[in-house]
């Protein structure tokens, strides 16, 4: 196992860019490692604009069945959400396109299960162009899917990592940490990061992950630090 040296942590310049990639008002794909992992949803929610209009959240039937529904008591009241639960993936795409034209919507999230034939390059291109024309962030969360051809401007792959140490209880999970891989992007260099989400302030802390995907031992579930 080879870890990156601590000195190779990202410079502040790169960190700023990373945060602004997520906040870009373009179409982004997010792939989850396992289907029921909520890390991708947490990552998307962390990037939503803090104020503004309604967030439109479209789900197809399988996504809702396998990975659950958005739960507002956990998400918080910051963004009003409108949910569209439809059965077919093509209906999700139609809903997203329609919502991207609406001025009162601040972001559009779509969840599609698997690789339906309707979700081809043309469909993603339409979404991407429309999102850019209307200046809205548009996120497509894809579960049990292959990263095949897509016009998404940023493509992420996200998995859970053992959470940060809880400040008061060594036994409890603390702030969530995710392994975030940007594997295709127009604006930035692809890379892998371990991201810690600070729930209190809503900040994302990017730090370099090791080459083989494991995380620096000092960043992980460090019980000694909490128990000092």
């Amino acid at each position: 196992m080879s870890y990156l040296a601590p000195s190779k942590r990202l410079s502040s310049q790169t960190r700023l860019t990373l945060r602004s990639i997520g906040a870009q008002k373009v179409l982004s794909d997010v792939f989850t490692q396992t289907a029921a992992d909520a890390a991708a949803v947490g990552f998307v929610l962390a990037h939503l604009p803090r104020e503004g209009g309604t967030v439109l959240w479209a789900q197809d039937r399988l996504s809702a069945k396998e990975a659950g529904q958005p739960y507002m008591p956990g998400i918080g009241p910051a963004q009003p959400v409108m949910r569209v639960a439809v059965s077919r993936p093509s209906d999700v795409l139609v809903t997203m396109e329609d919502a991207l034209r609406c001025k009162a919507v601040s972001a559009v999230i779509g969840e599609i299960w698997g690789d339906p034939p309707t979700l081809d390059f043309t469909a993603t291109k339409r979404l991407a162009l429309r999102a850019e024309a209307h200046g809205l962030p548009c996120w497509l969360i894809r579960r049990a899917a292959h990263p095949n051809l897509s016009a998404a401007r940023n493509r992420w792959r996200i998995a859970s990592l053992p959470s940060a140490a809880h400040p008061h209880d060594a036994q409890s999970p603390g702030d969530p940490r995710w392994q975030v891989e940007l594997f295709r992007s127009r604006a930035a260099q692809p890379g892998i990061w371990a991201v810690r989400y600070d729930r209190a302030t809503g900040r994302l802390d990017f730090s370099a992950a090791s080459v083989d995907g494991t995380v620096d031992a000092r960043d992980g579930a460090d019980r000694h630090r909490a128990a000092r």
Partner: protein
Amino acid sequence: MRVMAQTGTAPPDDLPAAMVAEGQHGPVIHDTNRAARLAGVQRGARVTDMKALLPDLRVEYADIYGDRHAMEQLMFWVRRWCPWSAQDGPDGLILDTTGSDHLWGGEAAMLADMEAAFSALGLTAQIALAPTWGAAWALARYGTVRSICPEGEIAQKLSPLPVEALRLNNGTVTLLRRLGLKTIGALADVPRLSLTRRFVKAKLNENPVLRLDQAMGRTAEPVSSPDAAPTFRAHARLPEPIMDPTPFMPDLCRELCDQMEAQGYGCRRLLLTVYHTDGDTHRIDVAMSVHSRDPDHLLYLFRDKLDAINPGYGFDLITLDAAQTEQMQTVQAHLGGGADETVDLSRLIDRLTARFGVRAVSTPALRESHVPERAQNWVGALHGSSDTAEVVAAERPIRLLSHPEEVRVLYAVPKGPPVQFIWRRQTHKVTRYAGPERIAPEWWHDLPGTRLRDYFKVEDHAGRRFWLYREGLHGDGRGGDPRWFVHGMFA
């Protein structure tokens, strides 16, 4: 009763029957028929008491909203006799027949005609005619059958009637009875000055002086007759049967919107009816979240629905009706022009609802409950939700499974945290956990025997964070061993 009369299952008049409504402490008598009234069943009494009095009392639930609607319809129906009518309380109608009676051959003939028409509808009507609203009210309820009170004889006609006939509330009636004033005549004989002094601060329905003045015609009480809501309908009558209504829709929508705009109305529901040549009809119904009269928007709502029409041999008449109409002002959202953003959102809701159905497009309604699935409820965005309850302070997952999924869990019996669980055929080893957070069943909602839940936030070896709960305790007497469920996922 109305429905039963239509279906021919109404109870006969000589058997006691009563309509009941939900009261504060169980059902109370809403209204009775004559047989029950004579047997001593009173309005407002509790059904259990009246059943004790009269064991074979037949009890049916009252359709209060239906009755109110029927009364409103009846108010417009009685305009066949005179142009002005209004509702008078929940069970009365007042008609201003001034100048209309000669058309029906005099006052007595008009009343006879009214009674015949009402009985043809299956309704019993007590009718009286008097120069003032108050006198007509009193004579209809406490006077003789079809009594007619000529001008100048009001005092004489009303004097034998009890004081209840003055539209006073119960407290005032009791007070007047205690004062020894049992009839209107006795009340009218009291010097006005002393009566006025006694009731100087009383409101209208507890003030016998004002009510007496109204009944005697000393104070004017005009009938304000509400207008029927206008109906809006556009239709296309076609010389030849056609198969597809799409080319006619823009014109129909525009015509309907012009009609509504002329009268300052907007609609929340549209009904498209096509009449087939073989006598069949097909209806398409679309709804909107806010009132609208924008032809382009209305047209858009029908976009995917027209394909559902089976043309058969074609159709030759298309009608478009506006329902749930309401007065709508033209508003300018911004001083510098430009559209309002909330209008955009409501149109998006309309479009999505028209396409995917009311239940597909929803907004969360938060409620004050500790049971997770009750704390959030998805309600149709078309109807809007205003529930914004305080969210529970404890940490909650960002995803919730619609149905908790049972898992096999290895844990220290009886109350230990989960060590390992198998969910969807995969084994998750728990590395860290937080909990338990005990959520007791809400006895006012849940069935007896519902078990409590102990929620744990757990993190597995791969870092995935789940919300698990154990249902019940060992030996709580509510079933066998506790079962474990996955209920949600944390970020």
